[in-house]
């Protein structure tokens, strides 16, 4: 039986191939949509995992979450550094780390922070050591510079025409392990270096006298807006790169765009969020913000999936048409098989089996194609955002597959039954 089916398919290999390719392409479309949506969802959820609670100046929750989790450049307002000091001393807080954006180097974001955050992102460095001096930098796994390399920070991004900060040259002291997040592309430097670069702190030993200066400076401003207008930092003075780190923050701490908070318990997390939602500050769970974004993503997925299923229906209809014509053309063969004693059951099985085989082959090929396409898209997304997007099948996909196979069984039985409509003699004359 199988040999006969295969011999038959070999005779019609052009048509069989076309049918398989048609099915494969339509299946691949739905597979890609399903897998890619899941990959983006899982990937960004994992990227947000280490960011329990973010505190920033009052403004957009989404913007705060996207900027901190995905290091998306955007104009975040600054909040008073006193908030950081207060959070650092709060007994419900495991640690609180400042996050200062705005600069970049060779297209990689330069983020001012503390060693605590580096250790939180990468408990063990891949190589080198944490920063010990103001001029040290720890780089993400995807930053190509070697240990000891010099990094010249630039205000804003290279594509936004920012200027190079000449006051300091960072030296790479360590490299984080792969985190699978956007932070793999980041260059992490001491927050005080960022403050000093932007003239927000008086001098290296931060004997700060010019408090109000901090409020209108731009450690976290949009690169585009900032780069164009305000270069009057008044900080031509060289920064002492060898100065020791100081990671204690008090009420005089300069302004910062965001603080990452690791609460001790879940209850603490909710209490802290409640407390820091006010007139001047905003507290968000990035995971919650992302969940809202996924809802939108989910809607887009439903739409794409509906389109994909629509194309599948059209393809199945086209295949049905082709098969019915094909059965018509091979009535002679079917008549002969019956004339020479093949049972009716075997005729149905042959016609049905051939079509079902094509469906299955197309389905399998479509799965492979869709998986490959999703992998390719994920890989190119990861290359630009550094967020690892895991392409994987899930349990619920099985029910989709079962539906497809069941439909294929039903659809392919129609031409099989129509093959027996004519008497063998009439079929032989066809």
């Amino acid at each position, binding site marked *: *039986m199988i040999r*006969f089916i295969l*011999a038959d398919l070999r005779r019609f290999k052009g048509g069989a191939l076309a049918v398989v390719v048609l099915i494969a392409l339509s299946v691949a479309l739905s597979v890609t949509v399903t897998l890619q949506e899941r990959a983006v969802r899982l990937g960004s959820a994992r990227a947000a995992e280490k960011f329990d609670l973010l505190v920033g100046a009052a403004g957009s929750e989404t913007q705060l979450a996207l900027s901190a989790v995905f290091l998306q450049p955007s104009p975040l307002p600054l909040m008073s550094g006193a908030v950081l000091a207060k959070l650092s001393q709060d007994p419900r807080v495991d640690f609180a780390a400042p996050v200062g954006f705005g600069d970049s180097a060779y297209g990689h974001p330069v983020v001012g922070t503390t060693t605590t955050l580096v250790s939180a992102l990468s408990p063990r460095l891949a190589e080198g050591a944490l920063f010990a001096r103001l001029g040290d930098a720890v780089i993400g796994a995807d930053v190509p510079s070697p240990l000891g390399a010099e990094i010249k920070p630039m205000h804003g991004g290279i594509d936004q025409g920012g200027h190079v900060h000449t006051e300091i040259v960072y030296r790479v002291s360590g490299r984080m392990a792969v985190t699978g997040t956007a932070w793999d592309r980041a260059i992490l430097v001491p927050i005080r270096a960022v403050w000093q670069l932007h003239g927000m702190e008086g001098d290296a030993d931060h004997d700060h006298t010019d408090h109000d200066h901090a409020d209108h400076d731009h450690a976290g401003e949009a690169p585009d807006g900032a780069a164009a207008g305000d270069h009057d930092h008044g900080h031509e003075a060289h920064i002492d790169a060898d100065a020791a780190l100081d990671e204690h923050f008090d009420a005089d701490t300069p302004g910062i765009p965001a603080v990452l908070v690791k609460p001790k318990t879940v209850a603490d997390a909710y209490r802290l969020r409640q407390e820091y939602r006010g007139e001047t500050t905003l507290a968000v769970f990035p995971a919650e913000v992302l969940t809202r974004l996924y809802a939108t993503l989910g809607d887009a997925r439903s739409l794409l999936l509906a389109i994909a299923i629509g194309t599948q229906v059209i393809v199945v209809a086209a295949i049905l048409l082709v098969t019915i014509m094909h059965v018509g053309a091979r009535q002679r063969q079917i008549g002969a098989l*019956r*004339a*020479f004693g*093949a049972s*009716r*059951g075997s005729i149905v099985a042959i016609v049905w089996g051939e079509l079902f085989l094509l469906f299955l082959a197309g389905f399998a090929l479509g799965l492979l194609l869709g998986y490959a396409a999703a992998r390719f898209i994920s890989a190119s997304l990861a290359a630009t955002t550094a967020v690892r997007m895991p392409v994987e099948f899930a349990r619920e996909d099985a029910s989709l597959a079962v539906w497809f196979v069941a439909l294929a069984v039903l659809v392919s039985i129609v031409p099989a039954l129509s093959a027996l409509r004519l008497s063998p003699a009439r079929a032989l004359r066809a």
Partner: protein
Amino acid sequence: MLALDIADLVMCFPGLDAPVLAIDRLHLPAGARLAVTGASGSGKSTLVNAITGLETATRGSVSWGGTDITRLSAGRRDAFRAAHIGLVMQDFHLFPGLSAFENVVLPVRLSRRLKPAERERALQLLETVGIARPHQSVETLSRGEMQRVAVARALLSKPGVIVADEPTASLDRRTGDEVAELIVRLAREGGATLVVVTHDPALTERLDRRIGLDGGRIVEDSGEARAA
């Protein structure tokens, strides 16, 4: 070995007023060898279709060894034909892509598992009909060889009846003669009743009885003439 009894058989086609075939009575004893002749359109093929159950009779009965095949359902009729009637056709109807051996056993294989004895018989039949390489692909054979494979296929299930529709018409004279001789000899050896539709006088010569058809009716019957 089965006897044929036809009674009041009428075959009509939709759109045609006159019946294509109308046979009041025809008896063929078991083991007889009958030639059916007549011009094209005389109803020869319709007769073959009626007695093999390939076409449903409009009226009347066709009995093989007491089984009226006009009363069987289409499925049972296919099964009866598979079990009792070996068919040889003008166009061979072999299946390309399969070997000579696979073609011979195809009808059995499509319905059930091939028994070792049937496998042996298939190979032996192929040897008998003169196919030296049974595993050669069927489309590479000559026309004469193709018809020999078809004859082997018809005989595999040891049918009680062999019906051949113009078996030599698409072959050249010498090949045709060889195939004709083969069919008659194997039918005799297998003890099968043989019905052959043919134009070929050489083939008609080899058979005991001849009926002539015209306009769907039997216009001459050598058997009756002899009896009379």
